[in-house]
């Protein structure tokens, strides 16, 4: 369980961890032993807490009830419940009482600072990507470090081990050089190349939104232009997800490694001139692990 791999970093950041499910203590004990889990797995065996939190998955019951043919119900069943689960009477019973899976980040007073819930049942944000998006840093593994005439950067994937449906991030930490300004979102309207990853299409990976930090408005005096730009060090997150469809799952059965290639593109100016757009080749190698379907006895 990749959350276990992140325990040291979370503990170092002073963040407590707990996972809640409707499993019995016995099942949780077996799971914890099998996977070497050291953080609390809490047994909410009548789903009271799940209901109290308002996140009980009601979709299966609806999909079997009088409104089963309502197109909106059908759409929700496809989005939130696995076909294999819905079609199996046995598994369907098991999903009764489960929550919509997700993560709450809390402050010391128990107030929610961020929350992560997946629209598609097969996808799950990795712990690392949750941490990155919550502003908790992670220790980069297998980072690419580079220096160009305009900047220094460190690029790494949030996760070096992925599985089907895993949502992760490609991270780049950028330090613009002295007097350098990198074009930020909005600058494309003026014909400039905005900083970001430009990744080659992959059959196994879907690239999603890019999270940009806030930029400043820079006044480029030689052309008297006001342009969104980054001057201080910043970090970009390119979100990606391992395709979770059934067809790709079949293809992934023979795969151990996924390589993502592309470039880090940007355009920069100093106080006097604007440089041509730059494209730095980058490549990330991720280990692919098959989903663990092991059950306790």
């Amino acid at each position, binding site marked *: 369980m990749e*959350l276990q791999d992140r325990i040291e970093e*979370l*503990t170092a*950041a*002073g*963040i*407590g*961890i*707990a*996972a*809640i*499910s409707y*499993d019995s*203590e016995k*099942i*949780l*004990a077996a*799971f914890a032993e099998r996977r070497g889990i050291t953080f*609390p*797995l*809490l*047994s*909410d065996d009548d789903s009271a*807490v799940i209901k*109290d*939190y*308002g*996140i009980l998955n*009601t979709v299966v019951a609806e999909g079997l009830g*009088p*409104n089963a043919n*309502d197109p*909106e*119900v059908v*759409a*929700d069943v496809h989005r*939130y419940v696995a076909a294999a689960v819905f079609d199996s009477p046995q*598994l369907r019973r098991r999903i009764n009482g*489960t*929550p*919509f899976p*997700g*993560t*709450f*980040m*809390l*402050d*010391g007073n*128990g*107030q*929610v*600072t*961020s*929350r992560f*819930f997946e*629209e598609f049942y097969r996808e799950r944000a990795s*712990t690392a990507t*949750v941490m990155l998006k919550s502003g908790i840093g992670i220790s980069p593994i297998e980072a690419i470090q580079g220096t160009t005439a305009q900047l220094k950067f460190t690029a790494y994937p949030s996760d070096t081990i992925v599985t089907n449906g895993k949502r992760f991030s490609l991270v780049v930490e950028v330090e613009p050089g002295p007097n350098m300004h990198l074009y930020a979102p909005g600058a494309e309207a003026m014909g400039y190349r905005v900083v970001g990853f430009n990744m080659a299409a992959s059959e196994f990976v879907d690239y999603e939104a890019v999270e940009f930090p806030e930029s400043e408005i820079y006044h480029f005096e030689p052309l008297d232009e006001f342009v969104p730009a980054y001057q201080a060090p910043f970090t970009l997150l390119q979100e990606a997800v391992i395709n979770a469809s059934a067809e790709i799952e079949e293809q992934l059965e023979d795969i151990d490694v996924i390589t993502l290639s592309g470039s880090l593109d940007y355009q920069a100016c100093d106080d006097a001139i604007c440089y041509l757009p730059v494209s730095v080749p980058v490549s990330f190698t991720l280990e692919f692990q098959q989903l663990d379907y092991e*059950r*306790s006895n």
Partner: protein
Amino acid sequence: MTTLPARLRITTFFFLLLFSISGLTTAQIRTAIDLHSLGPQVGERVPGFRLPDQNGRIQTLESIMGPNGAMLLFHRSADW
């Protein structure tokens, strides 16, 4: 603003009731699940709890909390 005569108001009310009941049986008033609106929102306090962990120890929101906060994960099952 003029008010409707009592009889018309009562009739209107019954018609509205009739339409809303028939709406329920034909399943037209269901709204799709909006996952982002379910459960405690950013800025809200989460409900407390008191649950045993895998070692039989009772844990609460306070006991699992770290000095800088906590990550609380809800998952379907450890078993499937």
